[in-house]
């Protein structure tokens, strides 16, 4: 398969994505609504801990939400759906290499992540005075690419546990929604002090908070250097590898409802 064909796969994925109202809403529209509501309700004061405005904390927080939607949520639900429809079974019967199918999804998620990041950053900058990352752009891009890839790998692996198309949205949200609360998405990072010890441990060990923190480092105007959050990105990458290994080992191509 040459590059042109791979591009066809990515373009098809993007078309499916923008024509799917649910995916588009949760990834592109909801994070913007959340950002505007959040800053409107809680104000845009300066955080004592970070010395930045609330919006500067929340733009990366909702970018994280959008990227997790475009990768983990989108793949867990989308791949389950095409698996149950027998589309994956049929793809498996073609000469295409499996990694092309998954790489196509990951590149689609990265493209989506970059676009929603641009939208949220633009709104943050214009409406709430958020500084646009410039010298920290390498850190931002690295976090986006690594985040989208790792959460895609986890989403691909997670489909193994989802028995049906109907179960997919609930099972996926059951994982990500609580994580958003303990990882500084719905509750600003500087308000997480009251978190019980074990929840704090959980948040630090699971991939959402490291992702939020890595993005925050890139958006924090006090950051010196390229904004690359080594520890956070290492945790994120580790989860990506775990997801990849589980996906390669356990991924199922045929519908579960006609297993046997």
């Amino acid at each position: 398969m040459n590059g042109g064909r791979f591009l066809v796969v990515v373009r098809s994925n993007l078309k499916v994505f923008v024509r799917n109202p649910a995916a588009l809403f949760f990834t592109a529209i909801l994070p913007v609504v959340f950002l505007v509501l959040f800053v409107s309700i809680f104000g845009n004061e300066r955080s004592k801990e970070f010395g930045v405005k609330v919006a500067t904390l929340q733009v990366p927080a909702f970018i994280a939400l959008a990227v997790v939607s475009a990768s983990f949520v989108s793949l867990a639900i989308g791949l389950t759906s095409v698996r149950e429809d027998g589309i994956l079974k049929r793809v498996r019967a073609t000469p295409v290499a499996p990694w092309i199918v998954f790489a196509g999804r990951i590149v689609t998620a990265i493209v989506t992540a970059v676009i929603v990041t641009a939208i949220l950053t633009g709104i943050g900058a214009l409406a709430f005075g958020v500084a646009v990352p410039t010298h920290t752009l390498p850190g931002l891009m690295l976090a986006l690419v690594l985040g989208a890839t790792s959460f895609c790998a986890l989403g691909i692996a997670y489909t193994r546990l989802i028995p049906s198309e109907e179960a997919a949205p609930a099972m996926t949200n059951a994982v990500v929604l609580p994580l958003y609360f303990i990882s500084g998405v719905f509750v600003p990072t500087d308000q997480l002090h009251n978190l019980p010890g074990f929840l704090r441990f959980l948040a630090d060990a699971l991939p959402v908070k490291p992702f939020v923190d890595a993005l925050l480092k890139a958006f924090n105007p006090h950051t010196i250097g390229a904004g690359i959050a080594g520890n956070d990105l290492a945790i994120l990458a580790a989860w990506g590898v775990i997801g990849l290994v589980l996906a390669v080992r356990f991924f199922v191509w045929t519908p579960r409802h006609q297993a046997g």
Partner: protein
Amino acid sequence: MADEEAIEISDLRKSYGDVEAVRGVSLRVRRGEIFAFLGPNGAGKTTTVEILEGFRRRSGGEVRVLGVDPEHGDRDWRARLGIVLQEGRAQPELTVRETLELWQAFYPSPRPVDETIGLVGLEEKADDRVARLSGGQRRRLDVGLALIGDPDLVFLDEPTTGFDPVARRAAWVVIGGLRDLGKTVFLTTHYLDEAQELADRVAIIKDGVIVAEGPPEQLVGASQTTEITFVAPAGADLRDLAGNEPFELEHGLVRIRSERPTRTLAAICGRAAERGLELERLQVIRPSLEDIYLELVQEAPVP
């Protein structure tokens, strides 16, 4: 050339736990023929097809599809197959053309998209999204997806189930066209008229065993029985009319089975004419493939 057979199966077996779903099936499908695989639900049809397609592993026997064991089929092998699954669906968000363009990218030397759209008669729907297609149109897209890789061998698993009669006729034209393209077609179907219309040869599987195999006309020809039916004339003595032939009376319709229909018919008509009786709705019916099929599958289970 070893490649003269598209499919060779000998003594194929498949067990699920204690249940043996396929019990020693042997078949040969020649290149360029349309082969219909018939049988009631649960007879082992889908199991056999999925073993041929490489989706399932067999428990015993030998299988060669295009000269390759499906359990070890590589990408070059898969490039030569086209598959229409029983429950085929496509991404509803894409148009017909976009779907074919995507699948085209999966194959090393595909057929042009426009040509494929023409083959399955979807020219007018080419830019409609899959979500807006009718059931018959979706099935035609399915067949298009099986053809986009320009395969040598096409598996069609119940391609017209759920079609209205007009859509079925249209699908038959498409499938018959595959023969003209030199493709080998392995077709499973519930519709006997479909097999009779399309297939060069048929095999009937029952309880995991092949119970009949051959060209449809030969299977039909193997049966010597012809049916003569007519409406029982009011007040007539049917026993007298039928002569020595045994007959059945069902809803006022007399049914006589004969292995020498010319003689039987002449005798009955002669007696009816002598007695001034008109035999309304008189019919002489050769058994169809459907009759043969029903006879075979309704017999006692294969031991």
